[in-house]
């Protein structure tokens, strides 16, 4: 179910980006919704790609909040950059930057760093690759290939000629 949802989100996000690109081919300037479609579509496809890769035994485990958080940060960052008023001389600064620039540079560019790689590390054992999973792959590889096959072609991808396109 998690994999199917991630694939669906990836497809829908890509369609949103395609629509944004498509709108640029219409006469005149791109419509206002194009930037929204590009921003939200991009946030969706990136989070969906992470979720798709993280699915293990049909679930993303404890990673749901992390992925939701990244989507929220990206989507909110892009949305605020699009809706807040333009910068003006003398405007207050946040960490030395105008508000919208601070939202994008710090919010989008740095905040995910604070929890995304840590989420990867902290769930690595249960979601990504446990010692048991690794040993299972190594054992299966030994059994599937067998001593004769290993000796014959240790580094060659197993392409079946009859079935290869």
């Amino acid at each position, binding site marked *: 179910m998690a994999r199917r949802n991630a694939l669906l989100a990836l497809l829908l996000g*890509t369609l949103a980006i395609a629509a*944004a690109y498509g709108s640029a081919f219409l006469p005149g300037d*791109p419509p206002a919704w194009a930037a929204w479609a590009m921003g939200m579509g991009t946030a969706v496809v990136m989070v969906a790609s992470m979720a798709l890769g993280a699915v293990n035994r049909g679930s993303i485990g404890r990673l749901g909040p992390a992925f939701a958080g990244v989507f929220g940060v990206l989507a909110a960052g892009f949305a605020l950059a699009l809706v807040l008023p333009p910068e003006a001389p003398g405007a207050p600064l946040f960490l030395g930057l105008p508000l919208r620039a601070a939202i994008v540079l710090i919010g989008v560019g740095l905040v995910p760093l604070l929890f995304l790689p840590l989420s990867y590390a902290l769930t690595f054992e249960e979601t990504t690759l446990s010692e048991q999973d690794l040993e299972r*792959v190594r054992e299966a590889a030994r059994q599937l290939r067998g001593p004769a096959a290993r000796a014959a072609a240790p580094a060659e991808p197993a392409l*079946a000629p009859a079935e290869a396109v």
Partner: protein
Amino acid sequence: MTTLALLQTGELPRLAQPTIAAVAVVYFAIVAAIGAWATRRTRTASDFFVAGEGIGLLALTLAAMSATLSGFAFIGGPGLVYATGLGAMFLLLPASVTSSMTSWALAKRMRLLHEVRGLITVPDAIGARYRSRLAQGLSGAAILIAVVGYMATNILALGLVIDAIFGTGLTVGVWVGMLITLAYSVSGGILAGVYTDMFQGTLMAVASLLVFLFTLKVGGGMGGISGTILAADPAFLGPFGKMGPLAALSLFFVFGMGSMGQPHVIHKFYMLKDPRKLKWYPLLVTIALIVTMLLYFGVGVAVKALVVEGRMEPLARPDDATPFFLLRYTPVLLAALVFSGVAAAIMSTVNSFMNIGAAAITHDLPVALGRRVKNELAWGRVATVAISVAAALLATMPGAVVAFLGIFGWGLFASTLVPALAVGLNWEGATREGAVASIATGLGVTLLFETLAFFRVYSFPAGVTVSGLSLVLAILVFFGVSWLTRHRAAAALDPDVKLVMSV
């Protein structure tokens, strides 16, 4: 903007100062020493293409970071910020997400595929996933086309740096730069590349951090820089700069999703000795990337503020931003380190391209034709020399030829590899027909429309990049054709590959 060519092709200001030249000589000597050491450890094709017995996490981190960043991060990038404002940051902003995303989507599965199949190239993974020589051959061809053009532009950039430092003239600079990089690449293979990358990556990160601190000092802190620019040109500090929202956000998409299709980076996952060390890879590489890209942002905005204040004359060429700032506002030793860092960034990228280009010639294309090169180590070295000489010859041809070849890099990698690999390794429903169709779409759309745009026959409207559109089309074709041929999905999976995809 229809072309994403992250290149340095403009001439640099003359840097010929004894300190800068001396530091560069020391730098090249260290690289040569590392190459000589690695050569003694390179005995097999596996050593040459995937670092044999494997490397540790720190080496992987620095090698991936070094391969990701070319000289553009130090010269062209700051110039782009100076010229277009904060919109140029949308090339870098995805870095906070991309390493984690790539780790989840690709790192584990590629490393485990290497475990069960002993794969040595990225197209190997496509061939194994879909049991398709055609898919492997098409992706190998796409890589080869992109690599030669990318190498030519990077070697040209290296020639420009060497000419600026030593006053050799551009042609001599190109050949000297190519020969130095080739010397350690052809003898020590990727093993030499990885360990020089560790040195080069450290140099790049330290230089970037120090220059960033100087930009803050010279500009009066971030607040001082912002205040100065806001008074004269508020749009520069708008979140999208002078690019417009659609164009800037499109960059985020292309450089975010496209990062999962850069073969010179992702093929390094094969090299990690212990797959479970991937645990801390995203954290380390993300921090390394962000530190190394501080210069890109800092110099771009600081030079803009200096120009606004009248402390620096407006730049005739945006690419002068970094050299002018370094030569006027930093100690000469730091400037020397940065120029060596620029050479380091270019050489580490070129080395990676040499390696994957040689692998495409001696491994992927023969496998696609049902053949196998007998002595892959020897032929790998021959192929490395051949594509390097070809790239250097191209680099010394008229600028338009180099510029034309250089435009294919990032977008071609992204559109041909992301759907088949990043999606396909995580979806059993993907079919070999879907993979072949998506790779062919990425290849065809990128080559056709980049060529039409280059020769001014047809250009996409503002905000649409060829790279972005070809990536979108390749993903949609991948989904569509896989769905149409879904009854054949199970036939495309070998049991060991299925196991790797299920873990």
